[in-house]
């Protein structure tokens, strides 16, 4: 017993050194060579950081493409999903309200056309992406608000659509922040 305890104590110290100190330091060191030195990739406009590439942002204004509903209101100090079950009556009411609000802001769009992810909260509350379909569906609204022809916007969404990994694996998606920055640039150029 005493022998085991002594070994345990010494071995624990060695392993703390190895697994909790040297290993993370090694990774942090290698991380210095990664984009933005392993601090998370940022997106800047004129040298001013406006966001993290991978962290979704809240877009409530009609002139921007919207992202998905978020349980943490896109404040990345924390992260969470809604954790609402599929049969929860309050949850179904929330979704119905989101559908109504989407229809009000997007005249000319029918209920059946709304992709489910635009009215359901993401897992992290920070989902940076929407599906290409969800971007296309908002073109009519943005064209109206910004006075840009619809084909121009359609082309913009298409250039910002990221195809599946290696062209084969997983879904296509659009990064909402990058799309909206490109949208702002489009107008400045005019």
């Amino acid at each position, binding site marked *: 017993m005493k022998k085991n305890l002594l070994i345990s104590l010494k071995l*624990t110290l060695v392993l703390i050194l190895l697994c909790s100190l040297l290993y993370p330091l090694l990774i942090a060191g290698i991380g210095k060579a990664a984009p933005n030195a392993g*601090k*998370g990739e940022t997106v800047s406009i004129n040298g001013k950081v406006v966001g993290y590439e991978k962290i979704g942002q809240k877009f409530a204004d009609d002139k921007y493409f919207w992202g998905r509903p978020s349980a943490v209101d896109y404040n*990345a100090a924390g992260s969470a999903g809604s954790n609402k079950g599929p049969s929860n*009556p309050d949850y179904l009411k929330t979704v119905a309200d989101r559908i109504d609000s989407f229809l009000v802001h997007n005249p000319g769009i029918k209920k059946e056309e709304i992709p*489910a992810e635009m009215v359901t909260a993401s*897992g992290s509350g920070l989902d940076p*992406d929407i599906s290409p379909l969800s971007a296309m569906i908002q073109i009519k609204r943005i064209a109206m608000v910004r006075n840009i022809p619809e084909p121009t916007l359609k082309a913009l969404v298409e250039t910002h659509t990221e195809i599946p990994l290696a062209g084969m*694996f997983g879904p296509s998606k659009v990064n909402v922040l990058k799309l909206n920055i490109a949208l702002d640039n489009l107008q400045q150029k005019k």
Partner: protein
Amino acid sequence: MTNELIGVVFMFGITLLLSYPLGKYIAKFFNGEKTFTDFLNPFERFIYRISGIDPNEKMNWKQFLKAMLTINLLWLVYAFFLLIFQDKLPLNPDGNAAQSPDLAFNTAISFLVNCNLQHYSGETGLTYFTQLFVITFLQFVSAATGIAALAGVLNGLKEKTTENLGNFWTLFIKSITRLLLPLSIIAAVLLVFNGTPSSFDGKDTITTLQGDTVQVSRGPAAAMIAIKHIGTNGGGWFGANSAHPLENPNYFTNMLEMIIQVLLPMAMIFAFGFYIKRKKLARVIFGIMTIGMLCLLIPTIISEVYGNPALQKMGLLQPTGAMEGKEVRFGVVASGYWSTVTTIISTGSVNSMHDSFMPMSNLMQLLGMMINAFYGGCGVGILNYLIYIIIAVFISGLMVGRTPEFMGHKVEAREVKIAALVTLLSAFLVKGFTALAAYMVAHHPDIAWSVKPSAWLNNPSYHGFSEMLYEFTSANANNGSGMEGLGDNNIFWNITTGIVLLLARFIPIIGPVAIVGLLANKKHIPESPGTLRTDSWTFGMMTFAVIIVINALSFFPALALGPIAEYFSLK
């Protein structure tokens, strides 16, 4: 949807391809044969020397367990004290507070036992110091404990008659130096270059394009996320676990994290075959486990792709499936695959929120954890399967009227009793404690705990019951995933799940080690035509049937009250 399906098939294929040679390699270093990692020999000898370990010492099953339990107890105390004093320790750039004693009790146990149930959110509940010195540390050593326990059992099975299960210390250390650490370094580097943070900078404050001011939590997460999956631990750096865009930035990292969490559980099965020189038995076990996995996976994917019937009724088409709680970059198929895998192999990390899955998928997740032996956790998966084998051997023996035997040893009353107790323990813990929780909600909703029982459940009715059942099932399976709507950071859940975690970790390890220790001591009976062949597919199906029957008998009533009832109410 096709691309999403191809992605999943590809992930499974790659895992299979990698796990076979890895299994061979594991068998070699367990056995002390030459491997390409022998350059680590001097380093390991150095560790033995300063820790006072005699690498040539042989241990019988009792000595083996004593060594294992002693060091585990030490880690528990160490982790607990660091967590309750974390606010006074360095590396706390976000100024996070200390954990309450009951939360620290739960967290320390949870990570010690390789479960990683989290009653806190990583962004606020821990400091960088405790993330690394408690969480990451325990993720390494708990996985290595499981692997060493398996190696001990294999040593017992390998020899005809032996007292010797090997040396716990050397098996344990080698599991880290030869397996967990090298694999983690590779995975962590890949994560870092795909956008997972690795620096020690604290929260950042930014003004968004629209003009909101928000904060972004960060930290040296990549190192921890790698071992979290390699060691089938599952506890996340961030609250949303691998649904968080920094913890799992894109489809490639999703594949990576998915592959590395199944890698060791699968490789262990092959290692088992190579090490005890019964490759056919390993193949049969692997086949049965894969069939079991598919039985859980296929209904999950179908119901997630179909979407939520309640939303369908509202007139919403769901071309991308049931997206509540899921991320666009993964899609529903990869999320469904993840949810199945993470529940059968006891990782418990998530890339989507299990609370928002369809009832059919919840049922599959719960079954995966209740059975807990389709691949199973790092090392312990096979130990759980071994218990089912012992029971299957016993029942088949009764059916054909022969003395049950396993690998040339008579299986007698004592071994069967241990196996039966280990099996019954799950049913007792899960149902007993769920009943207690349901009783508190129904009859004492206003007790002044930090979260009142009336506020525990995030969803009413059947789904609320599922949340409680899930929590104890997850604790009992040492899984760690949760239906996270449950308000679980209060003294009731912290203490009760803590107790379940401890019992459900160590008894299912002690049980098989003891069984094998006892079996290995007996006289070896050479195989004859009259021997029940445990490496035949017939016996494999027998084991599968035993698994289904035991779990159906144990859990069907509870499942009927939760996901099954919800399923029918949604139709």
